[in-house]
């Protein structure tokens, strides 16, 4: 898969329109007044005052509450749904199940076949079986509990490592192999023969669950034949196209609104059955329906980061040059193909200079919830293997881990056809400046095996990475309107996931038009009133939307200049735009305030339309990263404390330093979760059910699990080719190297190479005890 391909994960299965070319785009900014500053968000007031209306806050007159009955078995056939008790219960206004006409709707058609909305064949615990709407959520839940379902419980497989073993129960009739991806360049056998040191290791990352704080769900309301949905979503247009297709209603009659949303991390890129179900319940009851999933349902049914079983064999010369990498991965996207594992091998293919590479990835079906894209799909898993291997290779050849990586930096993409160059690669700067900011060499001397004393052991570790996308691309259409009083309205389809998208866009307009960012009103994420945007994901929102916003603002400026030239009776080329005023270069007395331009007063508004221009031909736009951390391990209890982090990121231009740093710290926090606390546990042997479907048993990092000492170090290289703002994506690269950096630091502190996540006290104390026994 290439980042230019139409089936890149964040637009998979949805139609993506083409937008016109923007024409001549403005040159790169030489200096900026607003962009790059530390600016609190333009919607900070709304988010801290409680006045921001999230989709789950929507409360319509006469509104009902929906709830979904889900299959309690990992694999079962629904024989009969007995809803007889429900009709007599108080407050119940709508009910749909496999026995009602709504069940005939086709939810999905793909290679695995056609799937109905309420498919009697339930392939994972948590599949939807029936749904109700009632006057209160309590009554809805009572009704769900009163529905009796007769299931034929089928044999299941809930461990991907057993999926392909002969005799394993098939998830789909064609078997449990979803697909195998193979990549090869050079000759790995020759590469290993030429190596001075060859190491091989197996790694495993456990399944991670997104669990954004706002659960998945929506409020659905029909006005005649028109449906409006307020949905907690990363992309309102993705929801619109899918739900309209399933319900067979025209796109124009399907409006999706998602101004605010409480976190997604990839799990809200696509539509879920719940939105269709809410719409059907609303239709049946002729009343608005709010349907938000329970927390437990979000653990079962709306995505995960696939568990990955990886083997990596690597060859290196004494001088540190890699000679060969051979990688295999067995992973699962759960019960349905989800494209979730296709990028696990990307770092092995592309991060380091290596002439001989072979990578084989096998995606299998199991009876578990389907994967959805999860922040930098595949990359943290691949980094867990590759970056621990680089650490081990450095140790084996007696080289500093940073130096080993510096020896193998590539200026072009080796895994893409034609080996296109990166527009910029700041990987070397990330490694060097990150190491300097961390005090890497000193810290390595003062911690680790040589400094080991007592039972509290300190160590430092680092890891690198790149993100295969993050360059953004068309389409994007943005409208900027400047009113006669000088205030501005920005109309953009993209969602702001909490990354600060709206604030960055306001800063771009402010930069061009010389007005305050807070004077800009933003309309976004509404299919009824804003322009098309692909879902916010893939770290592509800023590099996609910001250039289009800039083009729109520049067009407004151009129109104002033309009006001013007419008013001042001078040549356009003579004028310069100075924010509030437009002034003649030659004659300073020739000036006019924007608000005083007659043509603007007459028109009332000037409209600029901006499109996203194409990406540079035969070049790749990728962000790069290096992270460094220090840990302390209590070798008596197995407790791990992460003391500090330094994160050096080349994501091109920093658009807002405050929200930039916030993203960096957030990515590290999520990476600490993968490294130390998070793991989905399926009872694969007995019941196939998930046993830790809540935040007590599935532990997210809390305030006590992250260090206060985190440093964000932007590596800000000028990238004039990437796009007209020079910004590259940030949200995903920030979580790619984290877990591997922690594992490498634990190795340095204890001498233990922990190849399986999570590095929790349970695992550490066991490994430490084993080592003591071995003496």
């Amino acid at each position, binding site marked *: 898969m290439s980042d230019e391909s139409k089936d890149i994960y964040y637009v998979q299965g949805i139609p993506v329109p083409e937008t016109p070319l923007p024409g001549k785009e403005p040159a790169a900014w030489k200096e900026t007044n607003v962009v790059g500053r530390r600016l*609190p*968000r333009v919607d*900070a*007031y*709304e*988010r*801290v*005052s*409680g006045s*921001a*209306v*999230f989709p*789950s*806050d929507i*409360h319509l007159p006469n509104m009902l509450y929906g709830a979904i009955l889900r299959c309690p078995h990992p694999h079962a056939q629904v024989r009969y749904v007995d809803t007889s008790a429900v009709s007599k*219960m*108080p407050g119940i206004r709508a009910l749909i199940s496999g026995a009602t006409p709504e069940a005939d709707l086709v939810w999905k058609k793909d290679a695995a076949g056609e799937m109905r909305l309420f498919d009697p064949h339930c392939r994972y615990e948590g599949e939807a079986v029936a749904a109700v709407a009632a006057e*209160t*959520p*309590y*009554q809805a839940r*009572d009704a769900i509990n009163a529905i009796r379902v007769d299931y034929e419980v089928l044999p299941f497989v809930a461990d991907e490592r057993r999926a392909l073993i002969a005799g394993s129960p098939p998830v789909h009739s064609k078997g449990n192999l979803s697909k195998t991806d193979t990549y090869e360049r050079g000759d790995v056998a020759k590469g290993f023969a030429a190596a001075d040191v060859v190491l091989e290791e197996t790694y495993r990352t456990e399944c991670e669950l*997104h*669990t*954004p*704080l*706002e*659960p998945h769900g929506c409020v659905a309301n029909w006005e005649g034949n028109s449906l409006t949905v307020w949905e907690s979503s990363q992309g309102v247009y993705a929801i619109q196209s899918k739900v309209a297709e399933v319900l067979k209603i025209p796109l124009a009659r399907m409006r999706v609104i998602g101004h*605010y*949303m*409480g*976190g997604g*991390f990839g799990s809200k890129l696509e539509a879920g059955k719940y939105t269709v179900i809410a719409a059907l319940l609303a239709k049946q009851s002729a009343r608005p329906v709010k349907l*938000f999933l*329970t*927390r437990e349902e979000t653990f079962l049914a709306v995505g995960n980061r696939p568990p990955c079983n990886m083997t990596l064999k690597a060859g290196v010369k004494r001088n540190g040059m890699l000679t060969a990498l051979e990688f295999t991965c067995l992973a699962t996207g759960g019960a349905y193909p989800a494209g979730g594992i296709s990028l696990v091998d990307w770092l092995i293919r592309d991060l380091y200079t290596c002439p001989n590479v072979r990578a084989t990835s096998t995606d299998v079906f199991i009876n578990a919830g389907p994967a959805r894209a999860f922040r930098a799909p595949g990359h943290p898993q691949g980094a867990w293997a590759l970056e621990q291997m680089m650490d081990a290779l450095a140790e084996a050849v007696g080289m500093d881990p940073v130096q080993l990586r510096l020896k193998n930096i590539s200026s072009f993409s080796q895994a893409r056809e034609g080996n296109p160059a990166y527009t910029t690669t700041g990987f070397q700067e990330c490694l060097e400046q990150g190491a300097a900011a961390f005090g890497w060499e000193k810290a390595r001397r003062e911690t680790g095996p040589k400094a080991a004393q007592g039972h509290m052991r300190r160590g430092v570790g680092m890891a690198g990475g790149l993100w295969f996308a993050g360059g953004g691309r068309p389409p994007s259409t943005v409208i900027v309107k400047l009113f006669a009083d000088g205030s501005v309205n920005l109309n953009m389809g993209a969602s702001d*996931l*909490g990354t600060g998208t709206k604030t960055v866009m306001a800063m771009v307009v402010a930069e061009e038009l010389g007005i305050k960012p807070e004077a800009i009103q933003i309309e976004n994420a509404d299919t009824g009133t804003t322009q098309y945007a692909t879902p916010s994901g893939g770290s592509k929102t800023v590099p996609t939307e910001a250039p289009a916003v800039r083009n729109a603002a520049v067009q407004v400026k151009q129109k104002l200049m033309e009006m001013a030239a007419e008013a001042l009776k001078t040549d356009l080329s003579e004028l310069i735009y100075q924010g509030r005023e437009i002034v003649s270069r030659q004659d300073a007395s020739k000036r006019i305030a924007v608000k005083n331009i007659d043509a603007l007063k007459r028109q009332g508004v000037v409209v600029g339309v901006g499109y996203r221009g194409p990406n540079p031909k035969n070049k790749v736009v990728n962000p790069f990263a290096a992270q460094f951390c220090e840990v302390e391990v209590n070798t008596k209890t197995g407790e791990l404390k992460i003391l500090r982090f330094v994160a050096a990121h080349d994501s091109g231009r920093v658009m807002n330093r*405050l*929200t930039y*740093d*916030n*993203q960096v*710290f*957030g*990515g*590290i*926090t*999520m990476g600490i979760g993968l490294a130390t606390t998070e793991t989905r546990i399926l009872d694969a042997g007995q019941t196939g059910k998930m046993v830790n479907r*809540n*935040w*007590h048993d599935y532990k*997210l*990092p*809390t*305030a*006590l699990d*992250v260090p*206060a000492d*985190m440093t964000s170090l932007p590596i800000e290289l000028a990238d004039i080719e990437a796009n007209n703002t020079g910004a590259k994506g940030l949200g995903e690269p920030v979580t790619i190297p984290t877990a591997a950096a922690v594992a490498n630091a634990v190795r340095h502190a204890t001498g233990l190479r922990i190849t399986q996540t999570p590095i929790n006290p349970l695992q550490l104390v066991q490994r430490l005890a084993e080592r003591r026994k071995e003496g």
Partner: protein
Amino acid sequence: MPRKNSTTGPDGVTRRGFLTSMGAGAIGVAASEDLFAAGKETVDVQVMPAGQTSKVSLRVNGETHVVLAEPRWTLLYCLRDVIGLTGVKPGCERGECGACTVLIDGVPRYACLTLAVEAQGSEVTTLEGLMDGETLGPVQKAFAEADAFQCGYCTPGQIMAVEGLLRANPNPSAEEIRRGVSGNLCRCGAYKHIFEAAPRAAEFKRGK
């Protein structure tokens, strides 16, 4: 939870009905007492089957709200869906995430683990109650300036946790701040900025 009472005592009072009104938390203790109290149905409380509403008087942000509520309704549900204060967010509805944190008599509590009937007689403060008209309160202002949030969904709970902390301890140490917000999950990972917002909020409260 039972939807109807299977056994009704002479004065219409049942143990099950009583337990229903007391919430799930009390069931474990009471069930073991059943061994000794079998057959005795003399508890002197009114029957309140689930599904039937009664008047509940809540003091919220300095105003009194009398609502009709089922005994099993949580304070979270009453505040959000009945009274309309959506600054109280549901995240898990089982006491894990803290998104629904409110102050009850000045102390941070999870509104999802508190029944509305339990909150009678207490002063409840929600995020909305920290505002001075349309002006942000000191903790809210500090969160906005320090960018101590991303998506903003856990933020009301985080702000209430810090508010409660500062009311009890106007000058908390870094470690006390970490512990003070450790019952509030932030999946976006804005913890570091929250650590920075809390002392700033303490300064604002002191009038700096």
